[in-house]
């Protein structure tokens, strides 16, 4: 683990997408956890207190907007970027209301991910 790199938690029910995000991020970030649903995302956030959460929306057990809401209620300074296939305006507004700091729609490429992270967690 490199100490001056930001800690990132990846929450996505797709193993494929977790792998893809890890490959994009691991060069410049410490991946402190990879979880598959909103419940695990909240628990792992509380344990690891990462600098950033990359949060999917459509996940089993608990969705990413609810998880974001709980994380931001507990810690308004938490940084959460929604990383989702959902491109619906109403859903984006729900994400804003829950406290999300950024929103990336899948499919994405590395530059757009890095740009969104730079906006939320400047290096």
């Amino acid at each position, binding site marked *: 683990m490199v100490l001056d790199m930001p800690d990132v938690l990846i929450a996505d029910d797709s193993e494929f997408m977790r792998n893809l995000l890890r490959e994009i991020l691991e060069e410049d970030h410490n991946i402190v956890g990879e979880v598959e649903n909103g419940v695990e995302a909240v628990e792992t956030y509380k344990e690891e207190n990462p600098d950033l959460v990359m949060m999917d929306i459509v996940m089993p057990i608990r969705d990413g907007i609810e998880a974001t809401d709980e994380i931001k209620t507990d810690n308004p300074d938490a940084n959460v970027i929604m990383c989702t*296939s959902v491109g619906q305006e109403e859903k984006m507004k729900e994400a804003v209301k829950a406290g999300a700091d950024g929103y990336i729609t899948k*499919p994405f490429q590395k530059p757009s991910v890095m740009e969104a992270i730079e906006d939320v967690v400047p290096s």
Partner: protein
Amino acid sequence: MRVDIKSLGTFNQLAHEGAEQATRSMSQMTGIGAKVDVTKITLVGREDIGEQLIGDDYVGVRFDFEGELTGETVLVFDRAGSETIIESLVPGGAADEAMAQSSVEEIGNIMMSGFIDGWADYLEATIEHSPPEYVEGNATDMVPLVEDGSDRDQVFLFKSEIEWVGESVSFYIYMLPEYGSMTDLMTRHADTESDAIPIDKLEVFNEMTKDGTQRAADNVEMMTGIETEAEVSRISFAPIEDVPKQIGSDTYVGTVVEFTGVPSGFLLVLFDEESAVHVAEGMMPVEMESSGLTDQHKAAIEELGNIMTSGFVDGWANVLQTSVDHTPPRLVHDMGQSIMDPLAAQVGQHQEHAFIIDSKMRTDDIEFGAEIHALPNEKELREALDELLVERADQTEADVEQIF
């Protein structure tokens, strides 16, 4: 202009019974057993009418008809099937070109007269039809673009698929009423406004679906590097029990999600097995050693299905200014009919007929086939159409930067 579900069901039943009458006539003349598999009413772009006939060689007969209902009908056999029919009528006739053509014309004439007469009897009116015109070739030769004097891109198509018993041979009956003639008929026969569908909005919804398919195709292209285009998009109406048959018995790999909101229902993203392997490998950062479908391929397909689903339904939500939630994708790998069976059964608890939204995409680069099928709950689809503002129909995309 609205049409009620009951009338649509009646028209579908009429076409189905007409196809059954035509099939009985053929069986009586040839001794060949056959049954009508599926009859559906489809709202489809003119250029896509004969899409199922692309690539093969067909023969058939075409008629114009006019009266209470005006339009065109075509009976289509694949060439090998037609030769079997000719041989059963006139042994040795298939080798004689003139005899073969005459045989097809005559059997077509008898079959289709029964088909058209059924409509006339129901409508208690006369429908005249032209003498049979022999046609051969592929899609556009058999089912040419309908010229009905209107500038509409979409037309109503009644299509029955008939299977020979014990054979993997099918033939088809297409009926293409002129748009104005069909909508007049629908309006005259609407017996209630309570469950009526606005026809014009159904067309707009079909266009939105085409946009959604193109977005899904763009997503495939972005994730795999495979240049992909939306090909066909249509809305069909059929009895719920016939819905699974439409997906057929080929094996597919893909995803199923349930979506909730207005509208609600099920959405399937399906790839044939070979395409699934191609597409999944296009998504992998490293080349795969296995030639078959591995767990890694399936994980990639699951995520692609998720992304394609969103691409498809997000436009509906944005135009309707609502949200359409969907469950995480469930991977499926089975015969198409087996995948659809339980979904149709669930939807069928509340309705006898269903609208089915079908889209296909293609690529020129490799052998590739992907299909999206949506099975919305009829009541919510009706609500969605009622709420649809036609002037917002192009507002399918949301601007993230404006919101964040």
